[in-house]
């Protein structure tokens, strides 16, 4: 980003020191701090917290070359975004710690009935078991007609809780799938 700075510091100030003793004991006076985001990859995203929806820039290491696994190095506000204009609140400013967090869940787990601990479970098995649960519950409790004999085709025994940070597209998939199952208890953070 700034190739001239380091050379200036080395050349310029070093010479002064040299004048005292005749030899150079210190290479530079100023630590040559490089801008840590000078060559990172920038990805535009949206803050997942409140509804201001600040634009953010996620800086990841590497230049998207094949042999690099992207990892976040910095998150900053998007100065182009008309609402936040680069600013962020304390939550938005700390998003890097949300992305790079040692508490993240990293594998599917199951707690069996009556158990006092989590067990690891493979994705395929988890999905299959969940699907069987859904089908069993649905088949046992699906309501085709109400007490007056009117067709209602609804399922009142399975509930869906959607989160606040689910994307619209994901939510539509949820609406599609849940409504097709007949789910009436379709609710979301939007309610509370």
């Amino acid at each position: 980003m700034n190739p001239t700075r380091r050379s200036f510091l080395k050349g310029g100030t070093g010479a002064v020191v040299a004048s005292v003793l005749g030899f150079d004991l210190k290479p530079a006076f100023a630590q040559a701090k490089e801008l840590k985001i000078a060559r990172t990859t920038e990805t535009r995203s949206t803050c997942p917290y409140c509804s201001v929806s600040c634009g953010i820039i996620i800086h990841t290491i590497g230049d998207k070359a094949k042999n690099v696994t992207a990892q976040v190095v910095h998150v900053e506000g998007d100065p182009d975004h008309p609402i936040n204009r680069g600013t962020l609140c304390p939550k938005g400013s700390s998003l890097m710690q949300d992305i790079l967090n040692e508490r993240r869940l990293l594998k599917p787990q199951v707690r069996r009935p009556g158990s006092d601990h989590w067990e690891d479970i493979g994705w395929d098995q988890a999905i299959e078991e969940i699907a069987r649960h859904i089908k069993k519950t649905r088949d046992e409790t699906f309501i085709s007609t109400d007490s007056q004999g009117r067709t209602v085709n609804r399922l009142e025994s399975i509930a869906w809780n959607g989160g606040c940070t689910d994307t619209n597209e994901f939510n539509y998939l949820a609406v599609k799938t849940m409504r097709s199952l007949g789910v009436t208890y379709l609710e979301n953070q939007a309610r509370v």
Partner: protein
Amino acid sequence: MSAASDVRPSGATGEIERYTFRERVMHWFTGITYLYCLATGLAFYSPHLYWLASVLGGGATSRFWHPILGVVFLMGTLWMNNFWHRDMEMTETDRRWLDRVEHYMANRDDLLPSQERFNAGQKLFYWLMLYGALLLLLTGFFLWVPEYIPRQAAWVRPLAVLLHEIAALATIGGFIIHIYMGVFFVPGSMTAITTGWVSRAWARTHHRLWYLRVTGSPPPQE
């Protein structure tokens, strides 16, 4: 009186032991630690002498060892005091000597009263260094770990620096004279403090009372 004086039994010159091995160790121990503190201290004192710190391993290293060697130096002086404090007591003779110190400086020693093992100047230097060291340590302690000084007592910080520097300057003054006398002005001193032995003539000249005492001669009539 120090028991540490002996007349060398052999040798044509008949040298006298002025400083025992332990005393010499004491001296050089305090001397070297003082020198280190002086060099590093001067580096912190003046930008023009900061190169001293660089020579001694860098500023941070100097800052690390300076207070530690300061404590060691003080311990050396206290150790020294344990052995020398009685030799160093000021006497009536010393006062008279001091009154005529200009004769000493002008090499008219004949106009001065005879001196014991240490003359009044040496004694003064001794006490200067002892109390100087104490004050340096006291003020230096605040400079050593200023992070523990509460904000309310922040005024202690610059005061400590000021007193530390004044104390240091005082010892430096004494130290310059000490070095001058030991190395240049009084030949034989250096040998005395390195080998421990002085010639009879040297002893007689500079410390006549001591000389008479250790050689068993009667004190001179004034």
